């Protein structure tokens, strides 16, 4: 399709002569760019067709088909068997880990921004380097360590690990945000008799909103989507989050309920997708680019 549009106008443009060639060529270029845009967008979206269609299909299979429309799959997801538990586990772990991550992150970032102490720069640099370590490279030792300290196969262990894994990015993001808050505001608060923690709560917290939001989202999405850590750390089906639940039901041969599986996938992808699409513009600028450019 793209190939034919390329060739035809080009020969036509050549025949018209040099005077009209330029605007003609410009039009062709614009058309080509639109074609490219549509193709790229299709490439990104088409794979979701199956999930979207099968989730509302009464008798969906492993491949795309026109659905016999029903919302039954979602009803079953939230009422049947083990799936509500999966959802609940994902929610518990993601929210708790994000909260812990932010609590530590705000305090830590404040210290990194407002205090000068020996090793501060080294520390900042060290936690930046942590990003270089891919999770599969430490997961083996992490598992044995967690067994040693008896935190494997528990909410607490998973929450602590997830909160820590996202902490370096949170610290960097929030430090940047706090750096931008005028110091005079805090001094004024001190004169009014606020303590150090008081200023953090009254002055800093209201002003780090955007940074905090970005950090919260990045952490939440990382935890919500994580597959490897719960796969290794958790053994009790009662604790499985959605990622593991989906994997288990996908690999359970001969007894895959495709409709519910697709519905689970929709429920599972909805929170990050919605969050992202709403806050996209903000995120593109501040967090991702910023975290990297910093």
């Amino acid at each position: 399709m793209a190939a034919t549009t390329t060739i035809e106008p080009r020969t036509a443009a050549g025949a018209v002569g040099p005077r009209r060639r330029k605007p003609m060529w410009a039009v062709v270029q614009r058309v080509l760019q639109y074609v490219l845009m549509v193709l790229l967008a299709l490439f990104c979206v088409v794979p979701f067709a199956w999930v979207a269609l099968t989730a509302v299909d009464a008798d969906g299979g492993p491949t795309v088909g026109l659905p016999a429309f029903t919302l039954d799959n979602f009803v079953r997801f939230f009422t049947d068997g083990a799936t509500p538990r999966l959802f609940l586990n994902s929610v518990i772990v993601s929210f708790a880990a994000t909260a812990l991550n932010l609590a530590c992150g705000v305090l830590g970032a404040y210290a990194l921004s407002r205090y000068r102490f020996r090793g501060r720069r080294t520390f900042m640099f060290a936690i930046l380097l942590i990003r270089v370590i891919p999770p599969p490279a430490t997961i083996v030792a992490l598992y044995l360590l967690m067994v040693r300290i008896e935190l494997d196969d528990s909410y607490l262990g998973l929450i602590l690990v997830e909160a820590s894994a996202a902490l370096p990015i949170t610290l960097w993001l929030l430090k940047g945000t706090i750096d931008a808050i005028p110091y005079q505001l805090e001094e004024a608060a001190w004169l009014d008799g606020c303590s150090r923690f008081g200023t953090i709560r009254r002055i800093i917290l209201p002003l780090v909103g955007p940074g905090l939001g970005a950090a919260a989202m990045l952490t939440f999405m990382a935890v919500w989507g994580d597959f490897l850590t719960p796969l290794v750390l958790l053994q009790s089906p009662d604790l499985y989050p959605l990622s593991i639940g989906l994997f288990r039901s996908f690999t359970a041969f001969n007894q895959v309920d495709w409709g519910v599986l697709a519905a689970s996938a929709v429920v599972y992808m909805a929170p990050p997708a919605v969050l992202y699409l709403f806050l996209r513009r903000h995120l593109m600028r501040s967090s991702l680019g910023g975290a990297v450019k910093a």
Partner: protein
Amino acid sequence: MRRNRVLAAVAAGLLLTGALTACSATGEGGPVTVKLLQFQEARADVVKDLIPEFEKAMAKKGRPVKVDLVTDILTDDQFRTKITQQFYSGTAPDVVDMGGSNVTGMAGAGYLLKLDTYLRTWDGWDEYYPSVKKGARQRDGSYYSVPHEASVQSLFYRKDVLQRLGIDTAQPRTWNELIARLKKVRAKTGEAPLVIPAGTAWGGGSWTEGLLPIVAGTGSTLYDEKSGKWKLRSKGLSATFDLYADLVEADLLPVRDLHNPNPWEPTKYEKFPQGTLPVAAQGSWGWKYDWGPEGAAPIKNSREKIGTWDYPALVPGTEPAPISGGGFGYSVNADAAHPDAAVELAKWLSSGKALARQLTAVGAVSPRAGLADTAPYSNEPSLLQAEGKLKSSIQPPLGDGEDRVSQAVQSATAKILAGEADGSQAADAFAEEAEQLLGSTRVAE
């Protein structure tokens, strides 16, 4: 003061998460609780029905036991990973129902309770077939599981299909004879006629249901029980890898299907029932688990449509023979809080009517004599017939490190399937990888 409030909030957050983990812990009074893990649905379903009977029987004896059945449906590989982790971290259940190949590694690591004294005083143990006992005995001479099933590995074939194609259905004496017949089938149908589990996608099956029965028939020693060492190069192994290469070369194996992530689906569940792939290397559970009326892919009138051959002779001087394929057994956690009750459960589930019902549910052969008249097992002629073969079957000896050998077998056979190696190259690759995984101390010169 304000500082305290922030700290209190952080502390409360930590406590809250702590409280959440506490939910999974259970407290119990009264009867002792035994946790039993099942990872296959068919087994879990039948055992679930049996548990109340066991509890009743124990209550009558004045030793009340409550059985807590944990059902987690997993593939073999997922189960192995999971149970290993649980044993390692000390969170494994009290009784685990698993295949014999898993027991070796777990017993070696000291995770399982030694059952010798319990079995010695149990009259049921005397009824077990010698080959089953031999299969369950570990290298240190002890037992770490109560086998509750046995199986016989054979080549299942579609009698109706082969007859229609005009192919001889008598027991083939040698592999060459069988290959000649398979080539005729291929010429007529244009499709690969034989499936032997091979490659990595089939996982442990490529070893226990694939290569092991073939090698066992060659008479070459694979594992020397006396020295506890593996013999990774032998005439039998070379002949077996050559056989795989020949089968692939002649397009007799469904290579593409074996690459499927669930290779049993297109082969055993689709093409064998359809009749387009008429021969399958298979354990006796195939009668029920795969092709029985409630199996994964039912075949109607299976007794009439399916027959079994013993594995043909591969090397000169051997005879066709059925191979004993082992089965699941109940193992008890070495750290079980109530080992006596746990063993009692294992024994009870391996006896009488409870045993008969499990055997029927999964299509296993009885590991002990005296069950032929116990319903519903007594209504299973295919299984009873296989039990008859059990007495004359070859029991391949196995020892510590079997999972490593299995891994090497999977990747070596995968190389043949991918066309990356011929028979002797695969045999070399197997020997090298297995030695590397086992460590040189566990390999015979």
